[in-house]
């Protein structure tokens, strides 16, 4: 117990935003992820790569409370998060996007953002029922805040459009905008480049860097698009069969024999 507390205290002192130690999850007899470690410093841009089925999304689901890990610890901003509900992860400052975009499709772009601003709402149920002036004022603030966010991300002109009517690239961007509306400190992007053409991927690389600086975030992304990961990430974790097989700067990963084997088989070359 004391050991744990000191560890947590140390992680805060080191400026570590997220400490994941020996994380594992078992679905029945299947160990989907095991012995997974991850250390994120505030302000970094991190990547997780690995072949299909390596357990990357499972890790994301554990880091956002969707799955409850069966082993290990998740310490975010010095607080133990295992066992917390999904919305408490969000309230603590973890936001995410999904591999297959999960927008509120039938709602407008603006409404998608307004929903994500829910945690900033201070008025009570009675104020809502009577539509008090305090409530209306707060609602106007929410509207302004949502509009301002859409403007920053270049989506304002779509604000009254149905989310499902946007082109795919913009839907992905809207999903990021929606995640940003929860005012996160850690943003998890699950395959942000999936389904994008090369031009869009170039744009995305710039966008991710820009968003990280603009909103003062730490970013962790899962990606199959190797060029993108190698270009923008400071640090990469490589997974295969639910385990970490390599960990380091992009340069080291590129030349790591284990990684090349995992992707291309023995004797392969990047």
């Amino acid at each position: 117990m004391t050991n744990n507390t000191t560890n947590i205290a140390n992680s805060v002192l080191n400026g570590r935003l997220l400490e994941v130690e020996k994380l594992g999850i078992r679905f029945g007899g299947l160990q989907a992820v095991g012995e997974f470690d991850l250390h994120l410093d505030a302000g970094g841009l991190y990547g997780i790569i690995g072949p299909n089925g390596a357990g990357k999304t499972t890790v994301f689901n554990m880091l956002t409370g969707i799955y409850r890990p069966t082993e290990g610890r998740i310490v975010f901003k010095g607080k133990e998060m295992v066992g917390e509900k999904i919305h408490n992860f969000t309230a603590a400052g973890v936001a995410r996007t999904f591999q297959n975009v999960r927008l509120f499709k039938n709602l407008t772009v603006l409404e998608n953002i307004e929903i994500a601003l829910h945690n900033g709402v201070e008025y009570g149920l009675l104020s809502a029922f009577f539509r008090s002036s305090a409530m209306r004022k707060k609602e106007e603030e929410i509207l302004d805040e949502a509009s301002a966010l859409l403007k920053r991300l270049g989506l304002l002109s779509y604000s009254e459009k149905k989310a499902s009517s946007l082109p795919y690239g913009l839907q992905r961007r809207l999903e990021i905008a929606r995640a940003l509306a929860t005012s996160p400190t850690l943003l998890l992007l699950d395959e942000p480049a999936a389904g994008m053409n090369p031009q869009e991927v170039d744009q995305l690389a710039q966008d991710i860097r820009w968003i990280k600086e603009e909103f003062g975030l730490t970013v962790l992304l899962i990606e199959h698009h190797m060029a993108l990961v190698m270009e923008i990430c400071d640090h990469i974790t490589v997974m295969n069969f639910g385990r970490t097989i390599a960990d380091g700067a992009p340069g080291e990963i590129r030349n790591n024999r284990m990684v090349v084997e995992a992707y291309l088989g023995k004797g392969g070359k990047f």
Partner: protein
Amino acid sequence: MKGIKSYIPALGLLVFYLVCIQLRQAGYIKNYWIQILMFALINAMVTLGLYLINGITGQFSIGQAGFVSVGAYSSGAVTTLLFNFSSLSAAAKPIVFLLSIAVAALVSGFCGYLIGRPSLRLKGDYLAIVTLAFGEILRAIIRCIPQVGGPRGFTGLPRYSTLGWIIVFFGLTVWFMRNYIHSSFGRACVSIREDELASETMGIDTTKYKVQAFVIGATMAGVAGALLAHVLGFLHPDQFNYARSTDFLVYLYAGGAGTMSGAIVGACVLTVLPEMLRFLAGWRLVIYGLLLVLMMLYRPTGICGGREFPFLVPRLKRSPEAIGGRHDE
């Protein structure tokens, strides 16, 4: 200017009330039709509650009549068993009536919480089964309480409900509902309907809002039940059976589950329609059923077709600074 505009719906209801009263006094409409109108508005209130649960939050509750019976019986107990209405002064009667409505709201809201809290973790069909069972269990319980008449029915309730009272409560229900839906809580409920997991990852405590919507819906049904009890003057457990719950579902989906207007119009039209078809005698329900089938075929979005009356959508102004004058890009 804006202040006056927002009172138009309330004024409209007032004018509607006065016109109805005048027409009745002049003998143009019979008391019978006034009573049908009262039933229509009460049904609309119950359907609005159901709309919040099924239409907005995307759950599937089919036990709405159960909450109506809780409201009806508990308010009846207050006005009949707690106070002896024949010994009350004229001034005290409305107070007792309002008290009974408040009790009905509390009791049915509490029942909503008891049912909702454990069962809203269930999805889809399971919630439907639980709410259905709730309605039936309740009916069985009421039969066992001799104080409220048991299986013989609860008789001798004072007829406190007048068209005026019902219009006031109907107006308040619509207003509260509109305000709730167009608040952050309402948006939270809609997001649950759209995608529960995404909603949860946006920081919304989905269980909390599902229960909240369920309790509000139950409370509205309870208030409507209290009004109903004091229109009828007589209650029987079988009035609130499964078929009655289905009626409210039909009102909602026939009117259009996507809007408040749909819930209101659906309940009113389908309460009045069977009465207007009375001249068909035995064929009445056949024609009623046929009309419903035709509607499903040719207008699946409901009578209102997804449109909302403008006064049911409050508007907010976006400040120009937020947009920065011009649109982006």
